[in-house]
């Protein structure tokens, strides 16, 4: 669908991409400075690559050998900017109509009324951008990009400028958009939870290059995602199936092979998978199972590998086929006599397990 094969140099930074995007919702995940915005600017036509080519559904957007370059206004790609960039001199109504095509361009399913309904901005139409809150502004920015009936929707960290509460309120809107409109969505973010929540396929971007790609749950549970996980300060990312979700008990039980992991209650269907993150230092190691304590998660596993780096002892632990990183002090390692092959119990407080996806 979208063939990206180009290079773009900005000062000493080099973005070099050679991949094809095929899924409906694609996320590019990477830390700031990894080239995410440059990538979107090249796709939208705001920036021109130095070399290579860009194709969308067979149409040439940019081609160095053919000396061809389609200007942004001819690409019909909606672009939701990180800071919104609403036109300050226009009302919300005028903003969202700005890109409205004069003649229907085939994407007839995109109806302004539907957009306004889905994003719940009907009340805001007469206001100016400076009379909107951060979350409202971002919703209007999304509506403006959808209003042009785009062939592709680009989003640059659409939720980053919002605080967590607002994020969780906007995410469902993005879900609605994904379901309601047949528009491929390509977005960049440094948030693992956003990727988990929306994307069909994710690319890891690091220093201008794609280091890994795949289905988000698999990708983030794989070792190639380690840089991203560490960037977020999380060593363990797992996708686990739900066994029971009990609102009355306030817990959701996840299956780790035959064993169970309790996390705080979240509204999910049994059988669906939930991505979770656990920091290596939040896991406690014990040699006995029958300790009397409040922590509900006591998992049995085997130490596969011990690595010492910068004074930290990192255990690589196999729990029912899942590899987890556990951090202990060297004192603890000596006193407990931890060695490769030792079977021990791993204690995790439910509150130390972060759900990466909020329904």
């Amino acid at each position: 669908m979208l063939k990206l094969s180009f290079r773009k140099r900005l000062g000493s930074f080099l973005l070099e991409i050679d991949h094809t995007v095929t899924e409906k919702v694609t996320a590019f995940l990477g830390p700031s400075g990894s080239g995410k915005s440059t990538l979107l600017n090249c796709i939208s036509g705001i920036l021109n690559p130095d070399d290579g080519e860009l194709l969308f559904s067979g149409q040439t957007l940019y081609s160095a050998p053919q000396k061809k370059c389609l200007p942004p206004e001819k690409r019909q790609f909606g672009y939701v900017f990180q800071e919104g960039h609403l036109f300050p001199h226009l009302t919300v109504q005028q903003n969202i109509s700005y890109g409205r095509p004069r003649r229907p361009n085939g994407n007839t399913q995109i109806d302004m009324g539907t957009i306004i309904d889905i994003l719940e901005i009907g009340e805001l139409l007469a206001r100016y951008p400076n009379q909107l809150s951060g979350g409202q502004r971002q919703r209007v920015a999304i509506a403006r990009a959808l209003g042009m009936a785009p062939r592709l929707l680009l989003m640059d960290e659409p939720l980053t400028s919002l605080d967590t509460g607002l994020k969780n309120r906007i995410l469902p809107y993005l879900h609605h958009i994904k379901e309601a409109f047949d528009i491929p969505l390509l977005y960049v973010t440094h948030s693992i939870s956003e990727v988990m929540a929306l994307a069909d396929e994710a690319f890891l971007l690091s220093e201008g290059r794609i280091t890994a790609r795949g289905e988000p749950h698999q990708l983030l549970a794989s070792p190639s995602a380690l840089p991203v996980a560490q960037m977020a300060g999380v060593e363990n990312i797992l996708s686990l199936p739900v066994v029971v979700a009990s609102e009355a008990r306030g817990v959701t039980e996840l299956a780790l092979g035959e064993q169970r992991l309790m996390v705080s209650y979240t509204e999910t269907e049994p059988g669906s998978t939930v991505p979770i993150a656990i920091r290596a230092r939040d896991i406690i190691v014990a040699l006995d199972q029958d300790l009397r304590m409040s922590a509900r998660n006591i998992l049995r596993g085997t130490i596969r590998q011990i690595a010492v780096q910068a004074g930290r002892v990192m255990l690589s632990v196999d729990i029912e086929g899942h590899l987890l990183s556990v951090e202990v002090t060297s004192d603890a390692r000596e006193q407990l006599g931890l060695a490769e092959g030792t079977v021990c119990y791993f204690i995790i407080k439910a509150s130390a397990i972060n759900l990466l996806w909020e329904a």
Partner: protein
Amino acid sequence: MLTAAEVSALVLSIKAASLSLLLILAPGLLIGWILAKFSFPGKSLLDTVVMLPMVLPPVVSGFFLLVLLSKRGLIGGLLHRLFGLEIVFSWMAVVLAISVLSFPLLVRGIVTAIETVDPQLENAARTLGASPLKVFFTVTLPLSYRGIIGGAILGFSRSLGEFGATMMVAGNIPGKTQTLPLAIYNFVQVGQDLSAYRLVFLSTLIAFATLWIAERMYIKR
């Protein structure tokens, strides 16, 4: 009250300055936009040529105009052959002289105003399907019009005060090419102090008012 000579000087000045503003506004917007938005070889040369009248002695600018606009000059000769126009020492020469001299101030104001518009807003408009021209009229201009009006007002006041270039290319013909500053000079020369005082007062009043409005345009955003 004002004498007929004083009134005609005042009216000519205001008419010429207004006409000049109409004449240079569109080219000023175009060149200001080009200077603010594009980089190309020869850009600093264009910038220098446009700004030159701001630093040249007005008499020198006037001399260049005289050479260009006279019946044997490059532009004057052409206009004479085609339309039988004689520019030099006419009201048209007044308009052209003050246009050239106030153009740099107008362009400066426009460039500054356009540069204050966030380029990301213009990029956003492009992605929404707007051509560069549509972006200019629907985003750039509405967001920078205050600064542009401010620049136009400054150019207008500069026009009202022009002396040297006008003298060179249009002369100092009462009732025909004698603008406000030229009339003041004349009245002082022939000892009509009262007339000179009245026109000096008027000039100061106009300058104060225009500058005050221009300042308010810049500050109130």
